[in-house]
């Protein structure tokens, strides 16, 4: 196994790519549709161009970035690029306790740098119009509803990871593609509910960017994107282990 510092670097780069291209796609969608009147308050601008297709496009941007990162860094660090995944694997005793905090620090740092570099690449409109792709509950969605939705979305992500990657019986080679597409599917459905973070780091980066670059203060929503994903991921990991455990007959 490569050193912890190299694995942290892989987690840092992987999470950077996820946020730069994924959250960046949401920013660009909002910038393209800026100025057009929205048909209802549930529509904040994503959906003005192609309805649910806007969310599919954003989801695929996330999915392709995740797939590329998994194929590039999967053997180096495991390419969790998501604190909820790291914690879930630790919870089922498949990841060492001592590596959990370093992995999460690397993921949060990578996500943060991505938000700052996206702002530097696109300019002030990335913050003023796109909000750096920060997630928040959509109009009419309550705090607990948002936690529930994030938990269910992350449950699907983690159950896919368990089935196509963690399980030794899984067909090798498909994990990156399937998990990327799973994320795309989750975002398509729950994007217009919570922003579809399903990853505390993915929300942390844009929140920190917003705070330090003079944008909105959204930290009151951060517990949604910590509790929901971690609960969903741990439940999925535990449930998969239970369902797939061999029993003698």
């Amino acid at each position, binding site marked *: 196994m490569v050193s912890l510092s190299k694995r942290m670097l892989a987690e840092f780069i992987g999470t950077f790519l996820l946020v730069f291209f994924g959250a960046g796609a949401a920013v660009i969608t909002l910038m393209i549709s800026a100025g057009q009147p929205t048909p209802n308050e549930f529509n904040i601008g994503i959906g003005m161009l192609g309805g649910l297709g806007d969310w599919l496009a954003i989801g695929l941007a996330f999915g392709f970035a995740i797939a590329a990162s998994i194929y590039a860094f999967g053997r*180096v660090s495991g390419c969790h690029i998501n604190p909820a995944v790291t914690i879930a694997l630790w919870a089922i005793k498949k990841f060492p306790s001592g590596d959990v905090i370093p992995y999460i620090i690397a993921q949060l740092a990578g996500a943060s740098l991505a938000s700052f570099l996206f702002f530097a690449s696109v300019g002030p409109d990335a913050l003023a119009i796109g909000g750096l792709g920060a997630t928040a509950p959509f109009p009419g969605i309550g705090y607990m509803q948002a936690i529930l939705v994030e938990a269910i979305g992350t449950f699907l992500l983690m159950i896919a990871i368990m089935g196509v990657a963690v399980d030794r019986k899984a067909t090798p080679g498909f994990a*990156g593609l399937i998990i990327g597409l799973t994320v795309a599917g989750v975002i398509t459905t729950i994007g217009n509910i919570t922003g579809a973070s399903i990853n505390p780091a993915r929300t942390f980066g844009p929140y920190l960017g917003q705070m330090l670059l003079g944008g909105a203060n959204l930290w009151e929503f951060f517990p949604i994107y910590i509790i929901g994903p971690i609960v969903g991921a741990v439940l999925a990991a535990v449930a998969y282990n239970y369902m797939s455990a061999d029993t003698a007959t």
Partner: protein
Amino acid sequence: MKCYICAQMGKDTDAVAVCIVCGMGLCMDHAIREEVDIWEGGYPFPSEKMEKTIPRILCPPCYEGLKGD
């Protein structure tokens, strides 16, 4: 089985191994033993190099081909 390479040179030598790629019989002089590293793990776990290796017997042409020489 006889060594194919020796047979081409007009010699009659018993084979002691078979090339894992082409199936050619090989004597001790022409068998090349490669030790292949074993890696376990991969997404979502870091890969680990195992202490043990897997032996692979190759003939000279396949060895050169696989090494890209």
